[in-house]
């Protein structure tokens, strides 16, 4: 994590200068430049132009098919998007989706990380199965979920029926469509959360746990008063990582609900997609993209702030 680089140690010892040609000396003196040239060149070359065009586009009225000679409209796009009811709802949907999936992933991820942190028979086996959703292609796995969600003849309602629970109108009711997608999101990305948290658990110091055990603390007390506080930093890191993904979730939503029914699952990303490609409003879509980026940045800044405060304690 970059912000952890913030605490990187300063260079105290330097290599002995006796040996080596002038080239190696030069490389050593400019190490930070030489080592970063490939990354910076690739990223700047790939990202700068498209992003520049997006920002430029966001101030014009370019339409993909119907208005190809765009003229500048100033900040109109940025002002008009707020009059778009669907866009305003899509902001809510984005946070609803991201908040709920990340929360679900956190709870389930923490529980499984704690489980995998113990030793028991067949741990490696369970762990490798547990990690499988991580490798699943979103578009492929959406196809399975589409079949599962069928109200009348799908697997989920079949199971509910077997345990005498009333069937749920999964993806076809505006109320349940979003929870359905959240279920897919939790299924798909919890293993990644488990991984991050498990790594965190394994890096915790052992002393506080032993002290607590000697004091006769119960497991719950240890979990509540020692493990969780110590894990706080790792949890926030995990939240940063997952929330970037979750707000940008696209493939599963497109494949499973296409933003429907009645726009109930239209996230910002979906709304931009429809604006750009179904309606061809490139200018508006670009402005929305810039605003969306602003939102992502804001969430990350809040989380990074939280982390810094936590570290300063």
């Amino acid at each position: 994590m970059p912000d952890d680089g913030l605490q990187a140690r300063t260079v105290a010892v330097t290599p002995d200068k006796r040996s080596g040609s002038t080239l190696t000396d030069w490389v050593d003196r400019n190490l930070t430049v030489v080592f970063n040239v490939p990354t910076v060149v690739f990223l700047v070359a790939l990202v700068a132009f498209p992003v520049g065009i997006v920002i430029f586009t966001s101030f014009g009225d370019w339409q993909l098919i119907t208005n190809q000679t765009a003229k500048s409209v100033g900040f109109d796009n940025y002002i008009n998007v707020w009059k778009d009811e669907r866009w305003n709802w899509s902001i809510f949907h984005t946070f609803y989706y991201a908040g709920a999936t990340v929360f679900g992933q956190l709870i389930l991820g923490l529980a499984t990380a704690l489980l995998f942190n113990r030793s028991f028979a067949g741990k490696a086996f369970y762990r490798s199965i547990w990690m499988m959703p991580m490798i699943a292609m979103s578009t492929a796995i959406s196809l399975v979920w589409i079949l599962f969600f069928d109200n009348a003849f799908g697997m989920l309602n079949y199971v509910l029926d077997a345990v005498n629970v009333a069937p749920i109108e999964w993806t076809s009711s505006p109320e349940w469509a979003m929870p359905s997608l959240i279920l897919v999101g939790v299924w798909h990305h919890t293993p990644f959360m488990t991984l991050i948290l498990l790594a965190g658990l394994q890096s915790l110091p052992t002393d506080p746990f032993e002290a607590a055990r000697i004091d006769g603390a119960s497991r719950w007390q240890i979990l509540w008063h020692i493990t969780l506080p110590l894990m706080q930093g790792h949890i926030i890191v995990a939240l940063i990582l997952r929330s970037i993904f979750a707000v940008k979730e696209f493939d599963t939503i497109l494949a499973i609900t296409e933003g429907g029914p009645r726009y109930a699952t239209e996230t910002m990303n979906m709304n931009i997609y429809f604006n750009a490609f179904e309606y061809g409003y490139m200018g508006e879509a670009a402005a929305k993209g810039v605003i969306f980026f602003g939102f992502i940045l804001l969430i990350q800044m809040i989380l990074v702030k939280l982390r810094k405060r936590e570290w300063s304690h």
Partner: protein
Amino acid sequence: MRLSKYAVAGVAAMALASVQPAKAEVNWRQFEGTTLNMIGFSVAYVDTWFKPMAKLFEKETGIKLRLETLQAGQMRKKQDIMLAGKDDTLDLIMLQMDNRGGKLTVAGHLEPIEQYLKDPTLTPADYDYPGDWLGGCINTASVIKGAPLNNIVWSAQAQLLHIRKDLFAKYKVKVPTTMRELEDAAKKLTIDEDGDGKPEIYGFMSRGHGRLTTASFASYLFNFGGSWVKDGPDGLRQSNLNSTESVDAFEFYGRMIRDYAPTSVLNNKPPQNAALYSAGKAAMLSALNFWHGLASNPKKSRIAGKSTTILIPAGRAGSFPNLPTTSMAISKYSKKKKAAWLYMAWMTQKRIMLHGQNAAVPMCRRSVWNDPSYKAPTPAWGKSAELAAEYGIAIAKPQAIAIGQMRDAAGSIMNVAIRDGSRAAIQAEADKQSLVMNELIAKTETGIDFAGVLPKFAKKMTAEEQRAPILAEGME
């Protein structure tokens, strides 16, 4: 159906047809070695007709066709990006004129083809466009009045009513020819054998998913006397979705879905509906006639041999089969326009279309329907598909420049019609969405004259013709 002189000529041509037609003035190998790029959508008839024909085309002309098939929404996106970017690697596109045809025509992205059609070195003498094309197909090929011809329409897919012959016979239900009979049949055929409140067989199934409903709803809308748009006072069109007749249609369709269809249709894409129908879960399916192929495939279907299609029942305004045809067109920016045309002309020859027709992909050439080698999968399928291709109009969507938003507007009303269903709520939503539509029309369609989407442009179908498919199948 009268046997036209063209059909006779076609039959004669068929008899002569070999790898190289003897009298053809067109040198099919004039572009040997060229490669053409085409983007189309992935539907089953692409696999059953386009792909094998592409191989034959390469063998006969020496032109290689590279066909990239994509899911429909992704295909539109890719084509739009490439056309807007004036990309010269794209030669041919597959499209539905009633969907994006207007937009692409007005923007000038499609190459006018009259010149190629007239050129005897590029078009066979017996090609006969539009003479050999069915009326409905020709009707759908032109969307903007006065715009030059820029596509050849080939597929005569129509929205029809798939019915389970066996269930209608077993439960002694009258095969519907009117909307009232349709609801009556749906009620009687929603069957809950074990009495657990959950039907084993649903009476009726059609699309219920927001913007996708426009295609399957269109015939109901028009048959009830409604329409997407009407002529407005200032030369611009106006939304007609809030008229009494239109709201009647929304109310009826919404009720049919709510009461007689499994709730899954609300988010189903059309193929899932077809899959459910083929699994024997519904008595009637309002969908494209192509799905008969799935329903009658014993490997994939539980109802092989038990299903056929009829026309969607007539309403008080008559019967307007919805014919969302598919066309081929040449990109304005292609560097190989002549070769591209050669492909289109080759592909839409009678003998090539006959291959598709015999694989149950309904084609737009009249003569293939009358060809002795053609046998319809079921008598009623043949009759209803042909009637739809003759009388059909391209009403699957409210043809417009802002087509995406218009479909969403109509989809919003449908959502209310299915979920809420009260007349007042539907009317309120229809009024609201009509304002949206009128605003869009005013903003995008000044000076553009859309053709062919009003009921007055359609040929009237008689009650006998409405019943003809049912009689052909020997049902009552």
